[in-house]
């Protein structure tokens, strides 16, 4: 027996059903394997057609001919004479900074991915922290003599965050502090390293990113590079970042 909805499969994949009927159809798809298969095959076909349909491209000469034939009168003579030189200058102006930007962007993306890996590895460890304490006056002194720099930890008494402890971390052959915080069921790592000029990934601009459900935030302050990473929402991550920034102010 043919399902009466099957007559509307084309309308569904073309988004031509009214909103109410669209919702009904989507519910129906969950219970009707025949319509679900029909919708899937139509969607596949639609996407393939969309892809293969973009097949022919006009030549630049033909485009120019059409533009000239339909365009409003313009004084284009000087432009055509200087166009190659202008195009080269524009290309250089665009390519050089954008290449530099892209390199910097790629490095910072890679750095954030590596930091997220460190965080995940910590959470997977049987002993995620080497100094186990909720007291910042216990955790901070533990790093003395282990790191070539010092840092301040925020007072968390009136905040939703709880300090769980800390451990040494290494990133691009540099030692740093990894501090583990808790927010509800979420665990958040804060990494602090020296901000090195010789390592571009450790001198990336401040940024907030979300990737593979991990939020990351990074900034530099007083010669130190901070990374905050966790699976909580970016706003909470940012709040913890603000507490750290406040604590770092003299």
């Amino acid at each position, binding site marked *: 027996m*043919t399902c009466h909805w*099957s*007559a509307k*499969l*084309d*309308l569904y994949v*073309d988004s*031509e059903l009214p909103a109410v009927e669209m919702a009904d159809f989507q519910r129906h798809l969950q219970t009707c394997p*025949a319509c679900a*298969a*029909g919708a899937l*095959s*139509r969607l*596949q*076909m*639609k996407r*393939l*057609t*969309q*892809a*293969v*349909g*973009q*097949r*022919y*491209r*006009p030549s630049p000469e*033909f*485009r120019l*001919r*059409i*533009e000239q*034939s*339909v*365009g*409003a*009168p313009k004084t284009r003579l000087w432009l055509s004479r200087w166009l190659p030189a202008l195009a080269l200058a524009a290309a250089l102006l665009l390519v050089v900074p954008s290449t530099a930007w892209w390199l910097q962007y790629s490095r910072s993306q890679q750095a954030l991915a590596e930091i997220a890996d460190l965080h995940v590895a910590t959470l997977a460890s049987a002993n995620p922290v080497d100094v186990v304490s909720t007291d910042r006056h216990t955790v901070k002194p533990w790093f003395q003599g282990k790191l070539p720099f010092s840092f301040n930890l925020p007072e968390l008494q009136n905040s939703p965050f709880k300090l769980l402890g800390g451990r040494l971390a290494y990133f691009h052959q540099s030692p740093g502090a990894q501090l583990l915080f808790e927010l509800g069921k979420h665990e958040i790592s804060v990494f602090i390293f020296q901000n090195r000029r010789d390592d571009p990934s450790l001198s990336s601009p401040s940024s907030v990113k979300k990737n593979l459900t991990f939020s990351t935030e990074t900034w530099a302050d007083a010669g130190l590079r901070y990374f905050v990473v966790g699976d909580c929402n970016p706003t909470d991550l940012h709040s913890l970042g603000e507490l750290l920034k406040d604590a770092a102010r003299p």
Partner: protein
Amino acid sequence: MSDRPADAASFEALAIPLFAALYNLAHWLTQDRAEAEDLLQETYLKALKGFGSFQPGTNFRAWIYRILRNTFLTSRSGLNAKMTDPLDLEEDASPAAAETPESVLLAQADRQLVEDALERLPVPLREVILLCDMEDMSYQEIAEALAVPIGTVMSRLSRARKSMRELIGAQVRGAGK
């Protein structure tokens, strides 16, 4: 007679962004680069000439596509297409066919099979499927572009997709033998 430079400027602003898409459609219709270029050039000239009749605020894309299509239908390849398409397109308003083994075979369809099937579709079916799936036009827009009722758009689309499934299914089965 309207203000010529101002008209040309607004025509250019509306028409040039559609140039690549219109060329692609023209090439799909004619299946030939030189004919596609001739068709598009004539379309642009006719559209510029008739731009005064275009109602601002209405759908320019559908308007210029209708000019392209009408120009195509009176061209040599357009007349050939009309002669060789034996389909009684307007009569076929049957609902979409129930799922057949063809739909299962579609899962194996790759780009080449779809491209071949699209090439082999009669022009009226090819154009409706390209406008819907490639140009992402709504049924209403397609109806305006083809100057046919929405019901005709729906029945042609249904027919076009059925033909695509059958063509691809035949190719997949043929390759499997």
